[in-house]
């Protein structure tokens, strides 16, 4: 009986699942349309098996589990279609089907074990059911396929047991096939497949991209660290994303691929600080918005401080509602949730489905800022200042060089023949703390005999903060003016001690016609060491040092090595924090978060300083003015915070008179000890 029923069940499941899939595709296509590039579907297998797998494989057990379960299912499903669906009852295929089912069963057992007492990052609800469904499918398929190899279990004969087996199989097919199309947990496989194919940042999958990581290990992204925000068309009718349908359709597709694994939740600094942002919930909110309805069905941790709270599955969800053409804020997502993000990209880095949380958040911020003018208070003040004075502090831009009045910095305006290095000061030039870093950097450049100059008052804010706060108009204006300024001067490369300027000038100005070689000062100093242009004295006292990776240097631009090379050149041993490198925890200062200052249970920099303390380090080396400011805001006693440039400048061997004979008198200038 079952043998007769099986093809009907399979085809029926496929048909119903397909109908659901069509509905799902329609949901995705509510987003802003872009031309369909069907050929990209061909890219999917490599992206799935290679790029996605590398991220998943950061957790080996899960990777193995997923390979067994998913691989077993895909094989079992394909074989079942052939064997049971089309009735090609070949014993070899039957054997393979049994093997695939067994493989899937073993994987499903592992999944099930994980679901006995799931860690808080995981969602419950249907996801708790999934492991059972996987077992049902694999067991059912195994048993029903045994006759193919000549074994005839009695259950297949008929009667109650056969009915039970049929029910098990139906359950399995409903979950695995129908659910895939209609939005059960297995939706992730279907949406994920398309999401990988039509991903908005194809460079992320390109191992041969010019800025792809040279390191081909599991633990780093192998393709380009495609991190530049997409430019916004300022002539569009609506600026930014007001409602789910305003997202580009690939983004909606991406949200739908989420497996609610909670890796993003685990690494999000705002979530850890108890600010009302859980990136996983946010993505699920987007799915709710896309499909219409409320978040009542959500069974994971919520946004801290909001209904539902952070306890897994705690009742209370359901207050937030959305629809594809309904405004997202505040009905579906509260504005505080969006302003809590530091744009650190830890979530994006960890996401096995390669979902782009930060793009989505900035898209929604753009609407709030540009259309509603509701940037939170200090953020609004910073933007007003940027508009009025070209810097976020509202200071006279002509005072950008005040700190260096005694250094007599060479001006690029006086060097029509061009210079090797244009030193981009950044807005840290207005900050007394960062001026110490800049003075140190100048000392290093002079000691290394680097031919450099500065723009002085012609330099404007890079636009980083404006852009992350959603004010794309101010960003583009600043970018265009900076690019126009830069176009008047000749220089081989730009060096900056500010990772935000580094990122924006190096990665984001390209879209506006500004293509420059930009180096972060850590990279440049490492090169000076390599070239033997500077040397340092050995440390006098043994000291434990740790290094804090700035997000915009590390995760955004993949520079993890140079700062560590610099510390090694100083003769220092680095006691790495548990969260370092691509997994570094944000200082809390990125993305305008320091301005929006959303209250939480803890302060992000305090948590980061705890990470530092755990290493036993007495000094934390930093490489970003923002990180410096945030970490120095942690109350003392705490480890010292020193920029790499300061550490190098202090240890520099001053060139002797003989070797310095050719340099200008000003090059022997010393720093004040401040």
């Amino acid at each position: 009986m079952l043998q007769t029923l099986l093809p009907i069940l399979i085809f029926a499941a496929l048909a119903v699942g397909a109908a659901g899939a069509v509905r799902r595709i329609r949901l995705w296509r509510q987003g802003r349309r872009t031309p369909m590039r069907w050929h990209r579907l061909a890219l999917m297998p490599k992206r799935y098996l290679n790029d996605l797998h590398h991220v998943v494989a950061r957790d080996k057990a899960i990777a193995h589990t997923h390979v067994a379960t998913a691989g077993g299912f895909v094989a079992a499903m394909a074989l079942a279609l052939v064997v049971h669906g089309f009735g090609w009852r070949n014993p070899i295929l039957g054997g393979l089907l049994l093997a695939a089912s067994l493989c899937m069963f073993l994987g499903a057992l592992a999944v099930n074990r994980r679901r006995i007492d799931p860690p808080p990052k995981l969602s419950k609800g249907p996801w708790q059911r999934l492991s059972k469904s996987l077992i049902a499918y694999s067991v059912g398929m195994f048993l029903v396929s045994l006759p193919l190899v000549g074994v005839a279990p009695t259950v297949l004969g008929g009667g109650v047991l056969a009915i039970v087996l049929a029910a098990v199989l139906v359950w399995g097919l409903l979950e695995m096939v129908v659910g895939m199309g209609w939005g059960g947990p297995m939706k992730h496989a279907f949406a994920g497949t398309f999401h990988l194919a039509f991903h908005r940042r194809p460079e992320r999958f390109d191992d041969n991209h010019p800025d792809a990581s040279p390191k081909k290990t599991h633990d780093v992204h192998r393709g380009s660290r495609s991190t530049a925000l997409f430019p916004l068309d300022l002539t569009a009718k609506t600026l930014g994303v007001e409602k789910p349908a305003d997202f580009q359709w690939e983004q909606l597709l991406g949200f739908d691929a989420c497996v609610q694994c909670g890796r993003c939740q685990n690494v999000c600094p705002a979530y850890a600080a108890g600010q009302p942002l859980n990136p996983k919930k946010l993505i699920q909110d987007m799915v709710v918005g896309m499909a219409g309805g409320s978040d009542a069905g959500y069974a994971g941790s919520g946004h801290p401080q909001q209904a539902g709270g952070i306890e897994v599955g705690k009742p209370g969800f359901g207050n937030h509602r959305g629809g594809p053409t309904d405004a997202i804020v505040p009905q579906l997502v509260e504005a505080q949730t969006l302003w809590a993000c530091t744009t650190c990209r830890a979530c994006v880095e960890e996401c096995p489905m390669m979902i782009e949380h930060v793009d989505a958040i900035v898209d929604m911020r753009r609407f709030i800022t540009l259309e509603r003018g509701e940037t939170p208070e200090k953020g609004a003040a910073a933007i007003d200042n940027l508009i009025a004075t070209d810097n976020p502090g509202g200071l006279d831009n002509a005072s950008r060089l005040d700190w260096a009045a005694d250094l007599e910095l060479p001006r690029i305006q006086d060097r029509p023949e061009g210079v090797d290095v244009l030193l981009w000061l950044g807005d840290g030039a207005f900050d007394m703390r960062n001026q110490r870093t800049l003075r140190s950097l100048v000392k290093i450049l002079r000691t290394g005999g680097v031919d450099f100059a500065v723009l002085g008052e012609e330099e404007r804010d890079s636009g980083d903060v404006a852009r992350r706060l959603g004010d794309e108009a101010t960003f583009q204006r600043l970018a265009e003016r900076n690019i126009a300024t830069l176009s008047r001067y000749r220089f081989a490369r730009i060096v900056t001690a500010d990772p935000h300027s580094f990122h924006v000038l190096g990665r984001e100005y390209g879209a506006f016609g500004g293509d420059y070689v930009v180096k972060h000062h850590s990279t440049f100093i490492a090169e000076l060491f390599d070239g033997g242009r500077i040397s340092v004295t050995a440390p006098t006292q043994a000291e434990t040092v740790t290094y804090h990776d700035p997000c915009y240097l590390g995760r955004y631009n993949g520079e993890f090595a140079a700062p560590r090379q610099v510390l090694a050149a100083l003769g220092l041993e680095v006691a790495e924090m548990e969260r370092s490198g691509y997994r570094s925890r944000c200082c809390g200062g990125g993305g305008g978060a320091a301005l929006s200052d959303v209250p939480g249970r803890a302060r992000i920099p305090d948590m980061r300083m705890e990470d530092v303390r755990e290493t036993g380090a007495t000094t934390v080396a930093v490489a970003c003015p923002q990180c410096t400011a945030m970490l120095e805001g942690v109350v003392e006693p705490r480890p010292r915070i020193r920029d790499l440039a300061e550490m190098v400048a202090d240890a520099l061997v001053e060139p002797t008179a003989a070797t310095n004979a050719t340099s200008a008198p000003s090059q022997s200038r010393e720093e004040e000890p401040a």
Partner: protein
Amino acid sequence: MAHEALFKPIQIGKLTIRNRVVSTAHAEVHATDGGMTTDRYVKYYEEKSKGGCGLCICGGSSPVSIDSPQQWWSSVNVATDRIIPHFQNLADAVHKHGGKIMIQITHMGRRSRWDGHNWSTLLSPSGIREPVHRATCKTIEEEEIWRIIGDFAQGARRVKEGGLDGCELSAVHQHLIDQFWSPRVNKRTDQWGGSFENRMRFGMEVLKAVRAEVGDDFCVGMRICGDEFHPDGLSHDDMKQIAAYYDATGMVDFFGVIGSGCDTHDTLANVIPNMSYPPEPFLHLAAGIKEVVSVPVIHAQNIKDPTQAERILEGGYVDLVGMTRAHIADPHIIAKIKAGQTDQIRQCVGANYCIDRQYQGLDVLCIQNAATSREYMGLPHIIEKSSGPKRKVVVVGGGPGGMEAARVAAERGHDVTLIEAQPQLGGQITLAARAPQRDQIAGITRWYEMELARLGVDVQLETRADDSVVRDLQPDVVVLANGGHPFLEQVPEWGYSDNPDESLVVSSWDILGGKVEPGKNVLVYDTMCEFSGMSTADYLASKGSTVEIVTDDTKPGVAIGGTTFPTYYRSLYQQSVVMTGDLGLHKVYREGDKLVALFENEYTGEHEERVVDQVVIENGVRPDESLYYALKERSRNHGQIDLEALYAATAQPTLAESGDFALFRIGDCVAQRNTHAAIYDALRLCKDL
């Protein structure tokens, strides 16, 4: 950004100054070798530049002529070409750290002493005697006028050739230029006196000659007074007229403005306002000058705090703030602001130890910072951590010497315990600060308290240290700075007893410390003639007592420096305190409910009596030596300080030896000296610990 105005660079002439903070011209009394700016001088200014000071104007009253005596105050001698290479060293040292340096040049006219060195005849427009220096002088002749004008030009040339960034012509403090200006001193009827233009002529000719010599690009400024505060002197309006007159020439790049003339003791005290003055008391005068001139105005007088300086600059009263004593107390003031260590700034308290030494012809030192002007000896402003063994250091006594010893030892990285019997730190500073107008001296203690807390020193208050308490701490080094007690037992006839009910006399400590209520009719007998006796009299008077202060010396307060005794006198005279000199106290006895004090005149031997309610005696401090002798024998160095090493400011040899603890004692527990002496010994003893 905090302190935005303070750190705004400014253009003076062709010169860019990195911030708005100036160490203004003061006589350092550091120039040696006939007025050359040798090592000590250079390092003193290098430290300020290293510490971030924008502009240093050095060499207050540096003479350009050989008849303006240089030696009395070890001034910089700008009257000879020999100075030029020394200036080059000075300029290099300051420029190396990004600072700028100028020098004040002058001819002091009558404001000097003639009784030494070349036995110069002093000069003045009308030969009128100067009271402060008791200086008689001749009336200057036309030939001498033109010679001195030429000397100014040559002096300016030497400054320029030496690579300094500019020079300031002194027309303040009653030097020759403003002696010509002031009708109080200039009674001439020729072309150099009388009318406004005539009185201005000498200064104008000097300015023209200097400008002609150094050209347009070299910075030349003038320091002027804002108001002489003499009815027959130059008023504020006169000074505005003068400033505008010189400014109109376009030859002056900046004006420095000081409130008050200074050819009397009373006005002199205004010039360097001590702690009895409010903040920036004469800013309004500088602001008045700024109204009428077109170039930057510098003002220095009681500006000690970065926030105060910022407020003044933000208000636009002046363009640059002079923070000269602030830099003497802490040459790293700017660096500390920039490093966010504002609360680590050692702030000037206006004790005027620096300037009062200067007026005695002694090198300028800071009451609380013993490293200042001793940079050349290797005394550090920033104390390096020791690379040697970590020691347990026990300091007994929380007065200035003990606090400095604890601070320095802790900066060296040692484990430091400070034991103090009183409920608060400060020692005698706490008593000194109780007097009217003297409260700011407590700033010394405030800084130490914050530093000791920052450095994690274990401060045990209300703990009396005996030898077992000290030994229980198992120290490697013991520094005794436990002071002493008022020396009332010296003359038994004074009737002092340990039992307060029997004692006929009380001490200045009893009064200032609040242990004894002020009497109605009080006699203060003061053998020291320093701050303590005057403060006690002032305190008593302020509490309503009728007070006479008597000394066997020539006059009460006679040992107090020139910028501080006037402020005591102002207060004591106002309160009708009687000040009597030349009487020695022979005996005190009780008669009914009154006390009778029997005096003998030093010079006639005649006896006098006073019948009073209370006799307060200030007879200095007797060291408390018992703890020292209890510990001495066991210590490995028997309490001896190696003087060769101490004076050379190098490590005490005993530190390298083994054995029981090393024992040192400093400050008044050895013999009474002063705050600076205690702090200096503590620093040089502990800096190599």
